Each structure stands twice: as structure tokens, then as C-alpha cells.
């Protein structure tokens, strides 16, 4: 682990606390492991928010989280004593009971900790270049995901325009899938719709989704045989330099050629049929 002026011994100068519902492999890498009762994340975070401000919390409330007052007090002492604290959180928090409420509570805790010491929070993203997709969608459309272009400009509504919702409702009549395998992870109604409509997959491998698609285009794997950029979880872009050559085109090349082919067709909205800009959205 990196050494620095303020942490000259690297890992030895750092403390890692793992909070999870079961003792995972990460526990071995941690200095302290806290086993929280399933579904009690929000309660634990709220108790921490109260106790850092010296508010009263009942023994019963603490017992419900599966942790003891002693352990929580020790955690708070360490948090306040840190020179720079960072909370990493993942889908165990954002995709379980409470969902975005859990994330909001945790972000608030991190913000409030700054009354005592420097503290930040950062989401742990999924596999692949999820952060990269998120970053680019934001600069091009203002939104990270769950975007509809059906009115000719970007609109955002997770739960309505998210991929899974669009598929489950059967709203789309074609699907174009790059670098993802929804056939392996999405609920059955979504998969059923992918089977019904023309689904096109770009992937270096044959995936569950390729098997139900009409077209699979094999592409060169990014970072191995195709160049590009991947964004790290902290949103820093890393250049990908290919080590091998591939007979297959890159995702970028395929998309560019499809774009060029579409550009030759008449535009779906006749020129002048739409205003250039809406001053207020409807």
C-alpha cells in the first residue's frame, strides 16, 4: 500500500474496519470486523450519527443492531481520532431494505463527521467500467443512468427509465447491449422481453444475453486487445493499453460504423419539426 508523508509506514499506519452481515474474505484483511444484524444498517448508521454528537441512545436500540455499546464507542473513538477517515460502501447497503435511504444516511454521517475530523465516503462500484459509463453519461446528458431520450432531450427517472423497468414494462422495441450481461442477472420478465424484441449484443464472449439475442457481434476485449479508458471508482481515468492483437473490432469501432450507417438514413425527426431549444421542459 502507498506510503505518504503523513503515513510513512503505509498499511501499518492505517486502520480498516469491516462492517458486514457475515464474516467474508475481506474480514481477514481488516483490523476489526463488526458483524451487523441483516437489515439493521440504517439503524446502526443512525445510532452512530446520534452518538458522535453525544446524544442518548437506549441499550435496546443498540442491541438490535447485533453490536454492543462498547464496540460502537470504540468505533466512534477511532473515527474521531483518525486524521482522514473514508467510508466505502457497496450494494449490500444500497440494494437491501432501505436502499437509497441507507446510502443517504451514510453520506450524512460522513458529512457530519467533518465537525470532528476529515471524513469522506465513496461508493464501491460494480465490475467493469461502470464508473466510466456513469461519468460520460453525466457530461453528455447531466444524468448518470436511467435516462430517456424519447423526447429528443435527456430525461431522468430511475425506476421508470432504468433498463430493468423499461424491459419489464415492455416499453422498448429493440435492445442494444454493450459490455453487460442482463440475461444473467435481470428478472425473468425483463429477460422474456429481450427474447421477444431484436436484441443486439456486443461482447468479446458468448454470454447468457448473446444466447437470447438476434445478433451477437464479437468485439476485442478492452485493455487486452483494444485500447480505451477505464474510470476508477474515484473517477480518475486510467488509459488502457492493449497487450495483444485481436482479429475482432473494438466496441468503439462497431458503434462508430453503426452510427455512420444510420447517419445515411433520413433523420427520424424531420428538420424544423421540433424547436431547437425548449426554454422550459414539460
Amino acid at each position, binding site marked *: 500500500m*502507498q*506510503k*505518504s*508523508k*503523513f503515513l510513512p509506514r503505509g498499511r501499518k499506519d492505517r486502520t480498516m474496519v469491516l462492517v458486514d452481515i457475515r464474516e467474508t474474505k475481506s474480514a481477514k484483511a481488516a483490523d476489526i470486523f463488526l458483524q451487523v444484524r441483516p437489515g439493521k444498517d440504517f439503524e446502526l448508521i443512525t445510532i452512530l450519527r446520534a452518538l458522535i454528537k453525544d446524544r442518548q441512545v437506549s441499550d435496546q436500540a443498540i442491541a438490535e443492531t447485533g453490536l454492543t455499546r462498547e464496540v460502537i464507542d470504540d468505533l466512534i473513538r477511532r473515527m474521531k481520532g483518525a*486524521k*482522514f477517515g473514508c467510508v466505502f460502501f457497496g450494494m449490500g447497503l444500497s440494494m437491501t431494505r432501505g436502499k437509497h435511504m441507507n446510502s443517504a444516511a451514510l453520506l450524512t454521517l460522513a*458529512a457530519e463527521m*467533518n465537525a470532528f*475530523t*476529515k471524513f*469522506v465516503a465513496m461508493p464501491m462500484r460494480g465490475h467493469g467500467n461502470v464508473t466510466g459509463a456513469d*461519468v*460520460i453519461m*453525466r*457530461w*453528455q*446528458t*447531466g*444524468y*448518470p443512468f436511467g435516462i430517456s*431520450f424519447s*423526447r*429528443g*432531450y*435527456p*430525461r*431522468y427517472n430511475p425506476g421508470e427509465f432504468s433498463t430493468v423497468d423499461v424491459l419489464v414494462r415492455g416499453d422498448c422495441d429493440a435492445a442494444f447491449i454493450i459490455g453487460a450481461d442482463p440475461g444473467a442477472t435481470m428478472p425473468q420478465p425483463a429477460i422474456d422481453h429481450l427474447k421477444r424484441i431484436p436484441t443486439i449484443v456486443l461482447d468479446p464472449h458468448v454470454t447468457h444475453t448473446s444466447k437470447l439475442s438476434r445478433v451477437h457481434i464479437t468485439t476485442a476485449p478492452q485493455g487486452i486487445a483494444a485500447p480505451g*479508458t477505464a*474510470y476508477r471508482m474515484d*473517477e*480518475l*481515468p*486510467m*488509459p488502457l*493499453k492493449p497487450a495483444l492483437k485481436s482479429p475482432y473490432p473494438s466496441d468503439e469501432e462497431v458503434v462508430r460504423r453503426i452510427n455512420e450507417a444510420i*447517419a445515411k438514413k433520413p*433523420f427520424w*425527426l424531420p*428538420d424544423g419539426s*421540433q*424547436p*431547437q*431549444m*425548449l*426554454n*422550459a*421542459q414539460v
Partner: protein
Amino acid sequence: MLRITGGKVYDPANGIDGVVKDLCIDDQGLFVPAVEGGRTIDATGMIVFPGGVDVHTHVAGGAINFARAMTPEDHRRTQAFIRTKSRRSGLGGMAPTTFATGYLYAGMGWTTVNEAAVPVLSARHTHEELADIPIVDKASLTLMANNEILLDQLEKGEFERAKQVLAWYLWSAKSYGIKAVNPGGVAAWKYGHDAKQLTSPIDGYSKLTPGVIVTHLARICDELGLPHPVHLHCNNLGAPGNISTTIDTLKHLEGHRAHIAHSQYHAYGGDGWDTMCSETAQLAEYFNAHPSITTDAGAVLFGDTVTITADGPWQHLLYKLTGRKWGNLDVENETGCGIVPYTYRPSNLVNAVQWAAGLELLLLIKNPWQVFLSTDHPNGGCFWRYPEIIELLMRADVRKESLLKLPDGIKGKITLPEIDREYSLYEVAISMSAGPARALGLFQKGNLGLGCDGDVVIYEEDENVRKMFGHPRYVIKGGEIVLEDGEIREAPSGREFIVKPPCDPGIDDFMRPLFEDCYTMSFENYPVEMERIHNPRMQDCIEVPR
């Protein structure tokens, strides 16, 4: 090829003040004495300006993109650009998307913008975003005043080494110049502290003070011959009584070129929020006596916006003051950043002082070549509201009317009511184009002279100043008509200006061990590759007289 005939031309770079003359632009997009064939625009009765140049804005990179993520509620209510065969869709508002940024800037006649704060670590990202901003030409500045490796050299008194380190970083980022934000304060913020006194050592250092950083960065920029001098966001931004810090900073810069960013935020008196007042008269006096220093106003307009700055500790304070959303980004050992949505209200005395102070600086600094139009977009207001500021500068009666909306308590805290000056069109052309272009060292911009870039904005003369500047009749970028009759016609890609400062080839060997000790990416992957820059244009370094 293009010919513009009969227009009343304002070209301050060549001393032309409202003279009817023709302009010709050749196939390379440059002004030439005459052209054969091509289109002719009859600009009779119209006003011809060089394309606008924004000396200080935040339109691309990690910080503004974080702000976009934090403000979906604003995207939902703001202007929407609808996709066409030749144009991409996008959203305007407090933190516009990249394509919309290009359309909005070009839509009011601006053709060059300077992204003022880029950490080297996210330079690769910033260049990708800049490539997605159509029409306008771009430059970017690298954040340097809180970089640990550089600060360590200054602490050791290794000036020559520091100069080489800075040159290495600048070329790694493929940027145009140096930005200093709260020198030493952002480094201290990594541990929850700040740096407010120019002469006190910074946390973690024994000798190094913000004053030392300021002086040395200015000297390095001069000695390297960077076309744009050090671009400085002073310590103690936004705080009541910070005028003493600002004047102290300016004294540390004597003998050097410098550009002071958004000086409105650095011109306050008083000793608390209750007593905060404008001290712009004192600051303007300093500028009036020191013609080698330039500044941009960082003017504030009432309304909603989102504040983004590398000044992390200030943003934490703003979060505590407002209780609104707060985003914080720490960029390893290079810099930091904070984001807080904010609403400037005329009923709020502090905001009222800020609003007045921005205009006061634009009016009290006598030489328009020294003070430029800016809102520090999006911090003081969004760039697409510049025409509102131009109106306030040109019309004392509009200012008087606006002053009526301020609370009674404002009396004695501002000097704006006593100022009668009104900008002429010539002065507006300096403030929005010729002046910032000259300060940036972009001699081919803001200039309608032969051989310069054919960037022109043509207005229909109108009593309503805000309407006139908000809705140009034609905008021409590099000889191409990009806007006509209020519609974007073409959206060509812009270019990016970069500078390669002279650099000792041995610096790689010096940097590598230091880099590998503290960075989390590999040394080879760190510099942005030249082929990643979209339409790069190298700008030469210059000889800066001592």
C-alpha cells in the same frame, strides 16, 4: 470564405472604436485583406465585435461533472436542447452538459473559453469533456498550488527544481497554464485545516507559507515564459475582512505578471457576517496603481446556482452555513474540490454585498484591459447570464433600479450607488473579448486584425442591451457561420490550446521515485498522451521582461 460589409466595427486590440469597415475571412478561417467569392453578410446598421473570450470558467472535468450529478432537480426545470441530425441533445441550467455548453456560449457570441481548474490526475477526463464541447476553442489551467511534490521542493528552497517539476506537470496535463487555488490551504484541508495567513507556515511544513508559494509560482510562470501568467485564487476566499489577505497577496506578486481570479470574492471588509462590507475601492486602487496585474470580476447574479471550487475548506464552511447538499473530492496529493448548490438572494445582506462588489470592481478599476467580465461560472452565476451583467455595466439607471431591491441595511456597506460610470460598447468589447484574450496570451483571439482567427459576433443595435447581447444576429467561428437568426447552424469542433514549457530531460528520473512513492497509478500512464487531445494547437512560450 466570408465577407462582412457595412458593420460598425469595435476592435479594441487595434484601437478601432465603432468604425464602419469590411472584414474578410479566408478558407483557413483567418482575417485577410480581401477574398474572392464566398458569402457576404450585409451588416449595415449592425455592430461587429470580436468573439467573446471567457478567461475563467468551469465547464469540463471532475468537479463540474460531480456538480451535474448533484443537481438533477435543476436539469429537470432548465432549457433543453433537442437533438437534430447535426446537433446533439443536452441541458442548460446551472451546470450545463457539454454539448449544451458549446451551444450556449456560441449562442451569445463567445468563441473561446478557459477551463480554469484541472487537477493533473483528471486532465485526461477533462480533455475528453472539452472535446465534447462544440464550436468554441478551449484552454485549460492546471492546479499547482497544493501539489505535495512541488511544495516539498519549495520547502527545501530548491527553486530551479520546482520550476522543472512544474514544467513536467504542465506538459503531463497538456494544459495551457497554471492555476493556484488557496495556496497551501487545500493541502492542509486533507487533514481538516486551512491556510489563512500568508506568512504562517502551512500544516505539515516548517518554513513553507502561502506567500512563498504565491511568489514562486508567479516567478516560475514568468521564467518559463508561459503566455498566461499565474492564475491565482487567493487564500481566504469569501470571508469577511479578507481584503487584507488579498492586498497582502498582491504585494507578494510585485515584480511579476499575475491574473487574480474572481476578485469579487476577495474584496470584503468587516469582521463577521453581520458587519461584512465591500472593500472594492481599496482593491481597485491597487489595480489602478499596478497595470501589469489583471483580474476577472467573479460577479454575482441573484438566483440559483451551484458553487464548485478546488477550495475544499471553504466549501465545507458553505455547507455548514447553508445546510444544503455538499460534495467533497480529494485528488490524492494534488488538490481537492468541493461542491455546494447555492441561491444568491437580494434580501440576504451578504449576497447583496457580493452582488454590488462584483459590479463595483468592473466599474472602479479604470483600465478595462485589467478587469474582465466573469461570474466564475457557475459560482457567482451561470455564464449564459453575462448579458445581464453587460446591461448593468452599460446602464446606470438599470443599476439604480436593481439597488432598490436590496435591503435597507445595505447602506454604508457598498459604494455602487455612488458610481455613475457607464461602459461604452468599446469598453464592453475589451472586457468580454480583447482584454481576456490578451491576458491569456491568445494573441489570435479577441482581435479582428489581419492573420487573427475569424471569430466574430454581430449584433443588431438595440436599446435593450440585455436582449442585444443575449441574442446576436450572427456568430462566426473561424470563418464559419455557426449562428444565424437565433439558430445554431453549424456545430464544428473547437480546438484546444496547449503549451510546452522548456523542460530539463532529466526531470523524468527525478520525478519517478517521488511519484512512485505516493501516487496510485503508474508513472508511464500518468502523462496525457498527445493523441488524446482533440485538435491541439500549440501556443508558443514568450519572453517575459524582468
